[in-house]
């Protein structure tokens, strides 16, 4: 009866020391977020506004995209449109090839993960260097991100230290101090920035009125990626476009407070034109399913997401199971929903990774109804052919039991006899309830009889 998620989570939980650290670390981030939110009287008002702006924007997105592209072209930027991942990868490769690019540095972009761009380019002989420290670590390790904002959170400083020794990035064997390791990575990446032929960034926002691509980073790697190489390509999903600066102010104030509990990222950079000494800038707008998702009556609001990561930081299941327990590349509540929009057959196993506590939608800066949507997905599993047959059978039995008072009273009256079944039989692998906790003890008198005694 275990889902793919719970099986994977079991692996994660084998290392209890790490699992506790993971849980505590994200709870600390959640607490930092709370300090930021409570520090602003207008926080809830901002959430209301952010939600309403997004609802408006994504239901008028065709108009804003047109305005954005027109403004960007007026700035001298070449705007490309990709209907899916394949087309996106082809466009990127085409641009790089036409400039004879051998090496490209890039800042963090979940879109390029979504489109699996790096392997596509590497197969064609282009070296891609991730420059966000966390992304660089997992790239060197040959792994995928386990969190959208803290991609290497599944590794500790010893893991990173050993990796850097192996890759020749650090030269003091056994020095696994994070400050030292960060400095060694800085030197190594500095060399990459200086020798790359192109720089790619994602974008946190596209501004329809001005054509700006806005990128928020703490490391400054998006700015480094675009300051030395002669070519800048920016790639964003359609839903990243917002109307104007007035709206941007709302999101800029919330993104980092919600995501990492900081008042702002160190850098909030606006790219409107290429550098005077560079080739002209390219922006690629990627659909890859988004124009289908907007039609989904229950799930279109997933397009409101600004990828701050706060829903996974607060999620009790994410905190205790880690990013790799989910089958979609984005974990946590938003990843469950986006995975189901992408391919419900493949990602149904994730919808069980939710206690419906709704903490996610309580912290979400754009008031995305993440938990409600997960509940909705569960109702549709039978339609997708991914409902668990055992659970279906149990549900049928339960509706029969709870639908008939006579049968219910009869069953609860007899239940205490189950207490006499020897523990090894009751708590064996055949009883899914006994997995992870002991079988409960049934009271001798069921509740209905107890309450009658009190009333008399």
């Amino acid at each position, binding site marked *: 009866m275990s889902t793919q998620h719970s099986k994977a989570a079991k692996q994660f939980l084998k290392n209890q020391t790490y699992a506790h650290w993971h849980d505590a670390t994200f709870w600390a981030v959640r607490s930092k977020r709370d300090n930021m939110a409570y520090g602003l009287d207008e926080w809830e008002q901002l959430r209301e506004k952010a939600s309403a702006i997004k609802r408006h924007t994504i*239901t008028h997105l065709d108009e804003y995209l047109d305005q954005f592209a027109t403004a960007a072209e007026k700035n001298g930027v070449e705007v490309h449109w990709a209907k899916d991942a394949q087309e996106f990868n082809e466009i990127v490769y085409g641009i790089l090839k036409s400039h004879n690019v051998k090496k490209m540095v890039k800042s963090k972009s979940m879109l390029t993960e979504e489109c699996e761009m790096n392997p596509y380019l590497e197969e064609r002989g282009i070296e891609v260097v991730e420059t966000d420290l966390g992304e660089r670590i997992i790239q060197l390790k040959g792994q995928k991100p386990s969190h959208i904002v803290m991609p290497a959170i599944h590794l500790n400083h010893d893991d990173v230290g050993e990796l850097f020794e192996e890759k020749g990035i650090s030269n003091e064997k056994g020095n696994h101090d994070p400050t030292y390791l960060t400095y060694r990575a*800085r030197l190594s990446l500095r060399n990459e920035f*200086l020798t790359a032929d192109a720089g790619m960034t994602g974008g946190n926002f596209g501004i329809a009125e001005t054509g700006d691509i806005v990128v928020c980073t703490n490391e400054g790697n998006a*700015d*480094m990626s675009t300051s030395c190489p002669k070519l800048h390509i920016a790639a964003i999903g359609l839903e990243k476009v917002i109307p104007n600066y007035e709206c941007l*102010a709302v999101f800029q104030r919330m993104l980092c407070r919600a995501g990492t509990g900081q008042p702002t990222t160190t850098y909030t950079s606006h790219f409107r034109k290429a550098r*005077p000494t560079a080739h002209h800038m390219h922006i690629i707008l990627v659909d890859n399913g988004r124009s289908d998702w*907007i039609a989904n009556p229950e799930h279109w609001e997933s397009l409101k997401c600004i990828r701050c990561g706060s829903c996974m930081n607060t999620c009790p299941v994410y905190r205790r199971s880690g990013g790799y327990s989910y089958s979609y590349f984005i974990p946590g509540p938003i990843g469950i929903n986006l995975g189901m929009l992408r391919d419900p057959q493949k990602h149904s196993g994730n919808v069980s990774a939710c206690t419906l506590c709704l903490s996610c939608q309580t912290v979400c800066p754009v008031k995305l109804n993440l938990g409600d949507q997960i509940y909705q997905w569960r109702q549709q599993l039978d339609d997708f052919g991914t409902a668990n047959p055992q659970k279906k059978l149990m549900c049928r039995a339960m509706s029969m039991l709870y639908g008939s008072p006579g049968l219910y009273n009869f069953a609860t009256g007899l239940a205490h006899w189950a207490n006499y079944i020897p523990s090894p039989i009751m708590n064996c692998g055949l009883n899914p309830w006994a997995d992870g906790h002991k079988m409960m003890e049934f009271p001798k008198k069921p509740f209905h009889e107890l309450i009658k005694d009190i009333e008399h």
Partner: protein
Amino acid sequence: MASKEDILKKYRSNIREQFDMPDLSDIQAVTYPNPLLQFMNMTKSVGGNAIEVEAGRDINELIRELFPDAKEIASNLPEITIATRNPDEVGRARDLNGTDVGIIRGSFGVAENACVWIPQTMKEKAVCFISENLIILLPKSQIVNNMHEAYLRIEFNDYGYGTFISGPSKTADIAQVLVMGAQAARSATVLLLPE
């Protein structure tokens, strides 16, 4: 290849219900009795350094005192006489690598989060990031309360680039330990200048 029209047409036809733009004029954003003080405190809390410069103080001398060991100093600001490199005149952006101190000008600061608006005013913006230590010159009268006010004020020139900078480059990507100096400036100092 899909055209813009195909994608937009498909998106448009799939929208089921439309919502109005909310009124944003009633946002009751935080303001401070002393925005300058708030800005200075925030700068410190994000790992930066904010110094109020007294009237008549020699800026070049002050920078020398702050970074006595600096060999390569990059700036295109006319009042900076100690610069050894000029981001307007380098052949390639990468020639700015190895800069110990980069000195740039900010237009205004934001009290709520210590952001300083830096429009590109040099040929190679690399100086803002590649320098080991960054110094931002900012008139101390130019502090706004919050980002709503900030976005009403930002201006672009022909370079078509601008950034808000709040403190030094930082990361916590290794085991969530906060380290200053990831890929860009390892320290950031805002010199608050008198009128």
